[in-house]
């Protein structure tokens, strides 16, 4: 009897949607309608499915489990991914969002590594090349942000007002380029087999 295993297109798209949740925080009446932890659950479920056939994604899968737990307190705080929360009377260093950004960067690193490995395996030369470039760009942006953001506490307002939008824009571009990759991988017949 011939058994056809469908490609992992659906799981890759789900991965993309999961990252959309983590990328945007849209608040309606003070409630985030795209909470990060829902995004990480979607990511974890997708990675679970993908890693059954492609073991490259195992490390990313375990990292996504950690992120579900780390992102939970933020869902109740409702502060978004603000590393520095400033109001009239207090400047709080939000260590949970900082930890979240650190582990999130690690997750994306493992996913990039796994995607490059998949592209090698399936001989998707162009996709491998694009993935490698976007992965390097993403890591440079996020690691730079993690190093530079604490300086916002100690620089003048003009510096902060210049640094923040640049970081935010570069981060948005890097995230957008990253999540677009999943839809490109979803178009390939990755994971499909006939036995």
């Amino acid at each position, binding site marked *: 009897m011939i058994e056809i295993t469908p490609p992992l297109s659906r799981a890759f798209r789900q991965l993309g949607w999961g990252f959309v949740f983590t990328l945007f925080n849209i608040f309606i009446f003070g409630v985030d309608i795209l909470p990060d932890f829902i995004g990480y659950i979607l990511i974890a479920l997708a990675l679970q499915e993908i890693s059954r056939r492609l073991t490259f994604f195992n490390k990313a899968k375990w990292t996504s489990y950690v992120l579900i737990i780390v992102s939970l307190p933020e869902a109740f705080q409702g502060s978004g991914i603000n590393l520095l929360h400033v109001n009239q009377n207090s400047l709080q260093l939000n260590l949970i969002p*900082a930890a979240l950004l650190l582990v999130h960067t690690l997750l994306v690193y493992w996913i990039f590594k796994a995607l490059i490995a998949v592209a090698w395996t399936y001989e998707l030369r162009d996709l491998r090349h694009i993935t490698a470039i976007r992965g390097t760009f993403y890591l440079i942006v996020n*690691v730079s942000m*993690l190093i530079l953001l604490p300086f916002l506490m100690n620089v003048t307002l003009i510096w902060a007002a210049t640094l923040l939008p640049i970081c935010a824009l570069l981060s948005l571009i890097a995230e957008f380029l990253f999540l677009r990759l999943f839809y490109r991988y979803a178009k390939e017949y990755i994971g499909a087999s006939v036995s």
Partner: protein
Amino acid sequence: MSRVRGRTLSKPKRITAWTVILLLIFGSWGGNLWYYRSMQLEEPLFLKSYVSMSAGHGRSLELVYLENRYGSKKVTGVQIDELPELSFTLSNWNNGTYQTVMKAYAGFNAQGEEPPIKSPVTVKEVTVFYSEGPPRKVPIGEITILPDSDVELVDFYSSMASSDRTGYNYGTMMKPAVLERIDFTYSDRLKPYLHLYLSDKPIESLKYPISKQKGDGLSLSYKWEIPLDNPMAYVDYQPECRLEFRLKDGQRVTQSFRINVNFNLTDEQMKRLVRSGGEPQ
């Protein structure tokens, strides 16, 4: 898979790279946090003010203090125990990276009301109320408040003070009189930093007596020159210019006006003040 590994960093190099990255991240967070905390004031800091003024209509008293920009312990009220009827208004004057320059203002009585004091009052401490914790007596330098005198020999109709710390007062003589002396309070300490001019001539070069008729103009201008790194730049001196006249009947009359200071601190000065524990050398 072997081809994949061949294109990436070897394991020891990867471990080294991630160790360096993590050290940079944690170093940046730890270092910035430590520095931020080191630049915080334990509680609001009142600068030393030296004021000698009369409690006349329209006169106001100003105290300068620094508080942490994002701190929770803020000043909520100031009271002079010797003059409890004086009500202070707190206002934000200048925001620095870590601190805010705040000013506490209190105005004297409205025209027509009884003078608030009948004899000179010297204030060296004020009671400060905080958003956290009990009120506390805080040293503020020395403020001498004199009873209002009714002397008005010169009608000062125009005055201006600029942010470059220059200013002028223009007036007209209301009676004939002889000007015998011009000086200012705290001149022993302020002489190198405050220059006063009568009709653009330095007061040190004037030859007294100077005879003035009714209707004659009087033009007094001043210029502050305190280097930003000088300890004097951290003390709020509010001197009064004193004009000593002799009237035709021989009576001596002194009229005074406040020399505007436009006291402010730059961000650098605020940092220096905090680093020095409130006593810059």
